[in-house]
């Protein structure tokens, strides 16, 4: 497998060092990494999942809006960022692998390297109180 661009390597390194949940994908939405704090919310270790395609991670946690209606993948903030290359933000619930329903708030943003190379996106998320 070819090595990743420097910006993604540094992004992963940065995410790995954070205690807030962090999720990194390439321009096609393929999952590259999520950190220990994200593992705690998703209930799944990254070393157990490895990379996943966007179709997998956008559906496997059964996202639903705050009224409980299923959310299509294209409404998820990170998928919106992938489709528009713009930051996105939103709150919704997921069913983690332990079977718990968790409400999370996600902020996602695109990654652009020098000079204007689109490299993927990062989502950072928080477990919401409500």
């Amino acid at each position, binding site marked *: 497998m*070819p090595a*990743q*661009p*420097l910006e993604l*390597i540094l992004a992963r*390194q940065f995410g*790995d060092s954070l205690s807030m949940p962090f999720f990194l994908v390439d321009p096609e939405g393929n999952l590259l990494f999520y950190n220990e704090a994200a593992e705690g919310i998703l209930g799944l270790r990254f070393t157990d999942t490895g990379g996943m395609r966007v179709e997998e991670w956008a559906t496997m946690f059964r996202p639903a809006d705050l009224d409980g209606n299923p959310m299509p993948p294209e409404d998820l903030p990170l998928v919106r960022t992938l489709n528009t290359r713009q930051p996105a933000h939103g709150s919704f619930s997921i069913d983690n692998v332990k079977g718990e329903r968790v409400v999370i708030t996600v902020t996602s943003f695109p990654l652009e390297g*020098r*000079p204007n190379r689109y490299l993927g996106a990062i989502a950072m998320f928080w477990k919401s109180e409500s």
Partner: protein
Amino acid sequence: MKVKVWGCRGSLPSPGPENYRFGGNTSCFEVTHGDACIILDSGSGIQRLGRYLSTELKEIHILLTHLHIDHMMGLGFFLPLYNPDVTVHIWGPSASCESLINRLRRYFSPPLFPIRFNELPKHPVIHELNNEEFSIGEVMIQSEYICHPGPTLGYRLMTERSVVAYIPDHELQLGSCNFPNDPEWTSGFEIAKSADILFHDGSYTDREYFAKTGWGHCSVQDAIAFAELCKVKKLQLIHHEPTRTDVEIDEMLETACLERESDIEVRMCAEGDEFELD
């Protein structure tokens, strides 16, 4: 391909009898293959190189890894820039906003230097690079951003028979996840993999690196681990600290080799060294 070292000191020129063997000039490597004349970085070593180049040369390519002063301080003293019969191409990294020519002009203007680019008899041809491949003569070149403060490229020079990799300033511990075990997530891997010879940063001892994390350089031990990860044939360590004497440079390598056995041929690079690869 032939490689000649005209400077392999880091940060600051360091002339003096205690640095006689490894030399005091900052980064400058001459690569020749067929008709192609490629110069890697224009540290203070390029001044002397400029005096020894063939007068028959009409085209010269200077590949800058980055614009820290030790990699371009010799540019204004490179004689072919003042010869209207010679076309000098300068290749260097793209930045986020400011063009390469504008960044070069900061050096080529008062008060740092009395002559401006547009006062040269022939304006150099400027080429901006990011992660890409291009050719100079029969040499294929791959450039890729690597981990060092500011936009910085590593270069991989390939002919049919040999590969030279050049990464003079490189912080491996920051530019890698799980170093040195995962090539996919290691800065510079694509530049260095399976190279016949790798010229790589070896600025510090392990202990020194600990106090200088984030400065953009690495230890000899990390450089050796990187060379092993990349399965290169030979490793030449460069970017010697300006305060390091010949004796101390020898001792650094001895210590590193005692701590870590390696199948790779590891040497401290010296100014004046020549390598014939084909």
